[in-house]
C-alpha cells in the first residue's frame, strides 16, 4: 500500500498543527509492521522551524532536494513529538465551567445552548453534544470522581473541554474504527468522527480532551 498525506500546511491554526503533528507520529504506530509506503509532503519554505523539527522526529526517511537519507532524529522507540504532549493553552478568560457527576443530561443541555449561541447549525450542534456526552460518560465509566466541562467560543470556533481523573494510556485511543459488532470502543471513535479537531492529553493525574467545532467555515461532514 502507498499513500500520500499532507496534514500540515502553514495556514493551519496552532491547535491544528499540534494535533496534525501528533497524528503524523501516530501513523508510525498505526502502520507498524504493515507493508505501507507513506509520503508526507512538507512545505519547508513556509513552515516554522519548530514544525519542521517535529517532522524530522516523526519520519524515518527524509527526501529533500532529490536526496534521501535515514534521519538520526527519528524517535525510536515510538514517542510523541513534544508539541503533542505539552500542556494545552489556557481556555479563554470568559469560558464557563460546570462540574458534573451523573448529570449528563445537564452537560448535553449546556453544550447545546452554547453551540447554538456560537452559531453552529443544528446538525453540527448535535454532533458536538454527542462528542461531549461520550467523553463525559467515560468519566462515569472509568473514574470515581466528578469531571469538569469548560466551554468557550470565539468568532471562529467553539471549544468544549472535559477534564477528569481518568487515565488513557493507549495513544491510538479513538483512532481505530471498532468492528461494528464490538460492544465497546465506539465512544472516543465517534468523538473523532464528528468533531473538527480533538486534542487529548493524559498522564497519571488525569485526562483533558478538547473538542473543536469550526463556526466560521463549517467543513463538509457526512
Amino acid at each position, binding site marked *: 500500500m502507498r499513500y500520500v498525506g499532507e496534514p500540515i500546511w502553514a495556514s493551519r491554526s496552532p491547535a491544528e498543527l499540534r494535533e496534525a503533528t501528533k497524528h503524523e507520529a501516530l501513523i508510525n504506530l498505526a502502520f507498524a509492521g504493515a507493508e505501507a509506503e507513506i509520503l508526507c509532503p512538507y512545505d519547508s519554505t513556509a513552515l516554522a522551524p519548530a514544525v519542521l523539527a517535529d517532522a524530522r522526529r516523526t519520519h524515518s526517511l527524509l527526501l529533500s532536494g532529490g536526496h534521501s537519507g535515514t534521519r538520526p532524529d527519528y524517535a525510536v522507540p515510538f514517542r510523541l513529538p513534544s508539541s503533542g504532549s505539552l500542556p494545552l493553552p489556557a481556555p479563554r478568560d470568559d469560558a464557563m465551567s460546570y462540574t458534573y457527576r451523573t448529570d449528563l443530561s445537564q452537560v448535553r443541555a449546556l453544550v447545546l445552548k452554547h453551540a447554538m449561541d456560537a452559531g453552529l447549525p443544528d446538525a453540527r450542534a448535535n454532533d458536538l453534544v454527542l462528542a461531549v456526552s461520550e467523553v463525559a460518560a467515560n468519566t462515569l465509566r472509568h473514574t470515581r470522581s466528578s469531571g469538569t466541562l469548560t466551554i468557550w467560543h470565539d468568532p471562529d470556533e467553539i471549544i468544549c473541554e472535559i477534564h477528569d481523573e481518568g487515565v488513557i494510556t493507549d495513544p491510538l485511543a479513538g483512532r481505530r474504527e471498532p468492528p461494528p459488532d464490538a460492544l465497546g470502543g*465506539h465512544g472516543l471513535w465517534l468523538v473523532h*468522527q464528528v468533531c473538527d479537531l480533538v486534542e487529548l492529553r493524559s498522564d497519571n493525574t488525569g485526562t483533558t480532551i478538547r473538542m473543536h467545532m469550526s463556526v466560521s467555515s463549517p467543513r463538509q461532514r457526512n
Partner: protein
Amino acid sequence: MWYNSDVDLLTTSVATVESDSEPYTLIELTGEADVTNSDALRDLLDAEVAKQPRTLIIDLSGLRFMDSSALHVLLRANRTMDRQGGVLALASPRDAVAKMLRLTAADQLIPVYASVGEATAG
C-alpha cells in the same frame, strides 16, 4: 460504576401488537438513552428478548439522544435475537440518532426503518 440509573431521563413502554401476519413486540423509547440508564435498558431488552419473539421492533421516534452505551445494549440484544432466529429492527430514529447508527455502522447489523409500519413489512 457508582451512579444510579436515571429512570426519569428515559421512559420505555412495551406492547405486543397483533398484526395481519403475526404478533410482534414493540418497545418505545422516549427521552435520552445514555450510560446512566443503559443498565436499565439492558434489563428491559433482556427480558423481552428472553420471550423469544419472532420480531422485536424498537420505536426510536421519541428518543432525543442516544450514546454508545445504549448502542451497545441494542447490539447485544441484536446478537441474541439473531441467535434465536428472530429479527430486531429499529424504527423512526431522529436525525442525530440515525447519524450515530450510520457512523458506527450499526445500521449494517440492525435494520433501520423510517417507520414502525415499514419495519413490520420487513
